[in-house]
């Protein structure tokens, strides 16, 4: 792919390829990145609406939802319990598999890995295209589930067996089958992407780009790809077994035929905990790069940041049992999982302190991506600390399956991953689309999002400590939860405002896409390689030759130069390509 001779030939590629090959069945990693981004943002709208419906029911149980009457004529717009179960099941499924993974891993993985490593494209461009389209099919299959008789899957995003293994237990038939099928297809898509990312990171780095000169966002995507390659096959296999139980009469998870319900949980969480890190590691990488750029300062403890990513990669496989402390798993095993879970908190703590260290002594610019990255750090700290409650087995007895868990997961995947997504979009938008986003609208999006995000999710800790179970349809059915009901109303109002706060983002995104001011190649005065390519980068990214790398990615405010940044590609007297990192 990267032989220089290809360039002159490909200069006219845009005209030669035509619409279909350029925008639909493209093998260009940047176009595939845009496709994943649009897929994820579209799905985010659906996932968000599902969440609001869940919140409506929890605040004002069994009252008609405004505008829902045409969809639920039999109940005059009131959400029935089986529909409610479907709503939260699909909210989580869509947000995890079709929003955060496609955007952070699919889109930014595709966009950044070749551009930041100085490659002209991914190692396997056709496989890359296949990965997107297989992922799109998985999305279509998942959405099709909303239109089948009996409704979509309603056994929770965890689809615990036997509830999900026998159609009559939930009353959903093809909905749950399509859920399984979609995830089997999606796991194939993720594996294709992961193989591509790993191969590209190992084999296609530009001259001088040693492993320890890779930006942390690339490191995090590389580690994420390893996790995805190993974890997604487990999900695909488990979903296949569940589908066999449902349709072929096997008894993998059904005790009446000798099956074991807990086997599902072991398989699901053996996938599921690495999956949590698949969702958060890329956001950590984004935050690291954005914090360093806008603090105008090298990242604090680069090597420790890399080693902590690698430590998380290994440890994430041996902590999953903390999801199963009260499942009936042998309690002695629980003790081992407590220990490993406490241990995995250490690399996360190291990363947090290194982010603070990066801010220390900086010259901080409060751009919109920086605000989102700072929010990421703050929210990730809360999400990480609340995880310690769950790691402690005795405390977990009480908070397992309560809103404390719901609060924790949303501090990690919304406060963490989604603020990471916003930081990434605001930061790389000029490179991806060649136009700048509007700063005022960016602030108008960030500040209300930050405030209402916390007003929505922080009180959920309180609900959890009060004992409110997750996944219940109507909290007012329980005497001990009735005093907590005003909090549910408060949360729902905040959630509605949080949704409204996304309007400036949508306007900003589409307005900037078509009418934003043209972006120069390096609008943030950043060091990494993607900023040496034009905005947006052409097919094959660079002109006649690919960049040569002379140093690490975070040489901000270096005494060697007058400006406060020193791009990886700028040769200085005495610097040689291929020499060690600072």
């Amino acid at each position, binding site marked *: 792919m990267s032989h220089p001779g290809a360039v002159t030939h490909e200069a006219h590629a845009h005209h030669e390829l035509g619409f279909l090959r350029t925008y639909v069945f493209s093998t260009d990693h940047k176009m595939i990145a845009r496709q994943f981004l649009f897929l994820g943002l579209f799905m985010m709208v659906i996932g968000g609406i599902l969440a609001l419906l869940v919140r409506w029911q929890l605040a004002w149980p069994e009252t008609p939802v405004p505008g829902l009457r045409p969809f639920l004529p039999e109940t005059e717009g009131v959400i029935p*319990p*089986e529909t*409610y179960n479907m709503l939260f099941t699909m909210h989580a499924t869509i947000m995890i598999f079709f929003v955060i993974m496609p955007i952070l891993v699919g889109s930014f993985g595709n966009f950044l890995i070749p551009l930041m490593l100085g490659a002209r494209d991914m190692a396997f461009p056709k496989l890359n295209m296949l990965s997107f389209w297989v992922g799109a099919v998985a999305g279509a299959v998942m959405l099709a589930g909303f239109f089948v008789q009996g409704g979509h899957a309603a*056994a*929770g995003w965890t689809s*615990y067996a*036997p509830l999900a293994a026998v159609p009559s*237990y*939930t009353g959903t038939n093809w909905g749950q089958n399509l859920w399984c099928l979609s995830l089997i297809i999606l796991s194939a898509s993720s594996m294709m992407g992961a193989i591509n990312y790993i191969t590209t990171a190992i084999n296609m780095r530009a001259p001088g780009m040693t492993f320890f000169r890779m930006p942390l966002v690339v490191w995090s995507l590389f580690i994420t790809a390893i996790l995805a390659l190993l974890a997604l096959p487990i999900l695909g296999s488990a979903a296949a077994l569940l589908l066999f139980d449902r349709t072929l009469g096997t008894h993998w998870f059904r*005790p009446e035929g000798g099956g074991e*319900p807990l086997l599902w949980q072991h398989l699901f969480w053996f996938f599921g905990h690495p999956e949590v890190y698949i969702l958060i590691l890329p956001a950590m990488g984004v935050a690291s790069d954005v914090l360093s750029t806008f603090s105008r*300062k*090298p990242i*604090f*403890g680069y090597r*420790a940041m890399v080693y902590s990513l690698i430590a998380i990669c290994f440890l994430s496989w041996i902590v999953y049992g903390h999801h199963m402390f*009260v*499942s*009936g798993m042998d*309690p002695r095993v629980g003790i081992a999982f*407590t220990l490993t879970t*406490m*241990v995995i*908190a*250490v690399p996360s*703590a*190291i990363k947090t302190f*290194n982010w603070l*260290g990066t*801010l220390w*002594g900086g*010259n*901080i610019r409060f751009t919109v991506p920086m605000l989102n990255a700072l929010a990421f750090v703050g929210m990730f*700290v*809360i999400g990480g*600390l609340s995880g310690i*409650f769950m790691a*402690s*087995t*005795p*405390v977990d*007895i*009480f908070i397992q*399956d*309560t809103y404390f868990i719901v609060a924790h997961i949303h501090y990690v995947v919304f406060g963490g991953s989604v603020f990471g997504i916003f930081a990434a979009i605001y930061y790389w938008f000029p490179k991806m689309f060649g136009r700048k986003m509007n700063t005022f609208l960016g602030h108008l999006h960030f500040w209300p999002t930050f405030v209402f995000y916390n007003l929505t999710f922080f*009180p959920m*800790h*309180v609900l959890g*400590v*009060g004992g409110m179970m997750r996944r*219940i*349809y*109507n909290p007012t*059915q*329980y005497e*001990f939860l009735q005093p907590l009901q005003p909090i549910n109303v408060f949360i729902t109002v905040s959630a509605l405002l949080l949704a409204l706060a996304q309007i400036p983002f949508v306007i900003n995104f589409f307005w900037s896409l078509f009418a934003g001011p043209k972006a120069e190649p390096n609008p943030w005065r950043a060091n990494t390689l993607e900023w040496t390519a034009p905005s947006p980068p052409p097919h094959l990214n660079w002109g006649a030759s690919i960049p040569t790398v002379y140093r690490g990615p*975070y040489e*901000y*405010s270096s005494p060697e130069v007058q400006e*406060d940044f020193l791009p990886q590609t700028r040769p200085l007297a005495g610097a040689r390509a291929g020499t060690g990192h600072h």
Partner: protein
Amino acid sequence: MKWFYWTGWLPENVSTYGRDIDFVYEVIYWITAVTFILVAITMITFIVKYRHREGRRAIYSHGNTTLEIVWTIVPTLILVVLTILSVPTWARIKNQIPQSDLKIKVMGKQFNWEVSYSGPDGKLGTEDDIKFDNEIHVPVGKPVVLVLTAKDVIHSVFLPNLRFKQDAVPGREILGWFEATKPGKYEMPCAELCGFGHSGMKGWLYVHTPEEYAKWAREYLGSEGTKS
């Protein structure tokens, strides 16, 4: 204040080991709260102090090994202490099920708790078991062993006031126990999604004084209920 001092929201504890759980909870609460406040203060200080000003240049530093070793070791020690604090309480609750002559079988089924006391033969799980729907009666101050199982899907017995939660899994019999410290009527919801009727699937735990319990047992179990 209660918004931030979460312990105030915990339901009243009426079990012996509930105190131990609440203690570990309290320790973690204070450690995490103080950690968060320190991190937040540091972060806000840095954000304000090191905000961009014309003519200033950021410090050119790649890190500090001593500092990094300190902030690796300190959290590790804290987490080791929390592990050491957690394990004995967990072992006491889950590994050391006390001997008790009051064994009650609780079977979850969509969407009820079927509660069985042993009948005249003194054995659980036989024909003559005496069954109740959604209510458990126990005496105060006496360890009670629950035998949990499920008929169809996984359910979870949650007794917020007793700090008791244990999944009931079809095909398995899982033991759990508690000792109530205060007579009263306590709600017993199902905590694991079990189908469209999950919400509202609940029972009641009646904790009686020994005299009241004996009276109830005579009436409903046909015995004193201590050795049934």
